């Protein structure tokens, strides 16, 4: 796409926004491609889990009972709350409140740390019980899905850390906050996926 056609499409998008009041995706569009790709990968894994379970119902139900539903629920509350903090951070920066934005995002970052800690305790308990991905099909899905998600939480925390540092240095303002929205969108995706993963793997039988 050359510079002129890019300019025309941007003008068309602006005109569309003016005419309908509808905006494009918040944050950087490139990250949204990544978000949709990640959702697709997790979606395939969720469906694969459900269909594998359909042929090993007793094994999945028995193994599922060894998981801590309370840990899963606490982690869900932690991620939901961290997502709420991120929303507050984005609202703050849109109003030009850099300090408040940094506080909210730091709160979200710390909650991410709590999520990671609880998951590590869970992983350690499984390791201590000599459970691995090769133990059975349920644990293969449980460990791979939760570890894959765990890595996304870590990535989200790294992104949040970079944004917090930039916010503290005055790098964002009420006029320029695309970076904050981009990081926020990634963090919400991490929350979105866990919201499906938790009942699927920990609760539904």
């Amino acid at each position, binding site marked *: 796409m050359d510079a002129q056609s890019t300019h025309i499409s941007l003008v068309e998008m602006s005109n*569309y926004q003016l005419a*309908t009041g*509808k*905006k*494009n*995706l*918040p944050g950087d569009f490139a990250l949204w491609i990544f978000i*949709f790709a990640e*959702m697709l990968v997790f*979606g395939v894994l*969720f*469906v694969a889990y*459900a*269909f594998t*379970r*359909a*042929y090993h*119902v007793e094994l999945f139900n028995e193994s599922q009972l060894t998981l801590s*539903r*309370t840990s*899963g*629920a606490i982690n*869900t*509350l932690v991620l*939901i*709350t961290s*997502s*709420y903090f*991120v*929303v*507050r951070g984005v*609202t*703050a920066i849109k*109003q*030009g*409140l850099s*300090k*408040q934005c940094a506080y909210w995002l730091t709160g979200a970052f710390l909650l991410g740390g709590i999520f990671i800690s609880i998951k590590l305790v869970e992983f350690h308990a499984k390791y201590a019980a000599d459970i691995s991905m090769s133990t059975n099909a349920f644990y293969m899905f449980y460990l791979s899905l939760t570890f894959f998600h765990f890595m996304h939480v870590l990535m989200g925390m790294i992104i949040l850390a970079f944004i917090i540092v930039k916010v503290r240095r005055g790098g964002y303002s009420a006029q320029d906050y695309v970076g904050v929205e981009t990081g926020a*969108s990634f963090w*919400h*995706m991490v*929350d*979105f996926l866990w*919201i*499906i993963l*938790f*009942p*699927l793997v*920990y*609760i*539904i*039988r």
Partner: protein
Amino acid sequence: MKQANPQSNIGATVIWLILVVLTLTTWRIGEAGMVGKSTMLLLLFIAMIKSQIVANYFMALRHTRLIWRAIMFGYFVIVGGLIAFAYLISLA
């Protein structure tokens, strides 16, 4: 230090509270050991509603073009539908 407009945060706080209540409902159903077709469908429905709330309110997709909301709703229908179908096979 400037102060945030409290009006702009009430909606997000209400959404957060709804998500907390739905999460605790899911956890209670799990702790009560409830099983069966209707329980499975209810839990799946709660999960999908929660994910749509996050997409529309936290990710702010409700302000975006129809195509992006349609993608999220399509995810809700396709992934949720296939999971429900797989569970119904196992219950048949």
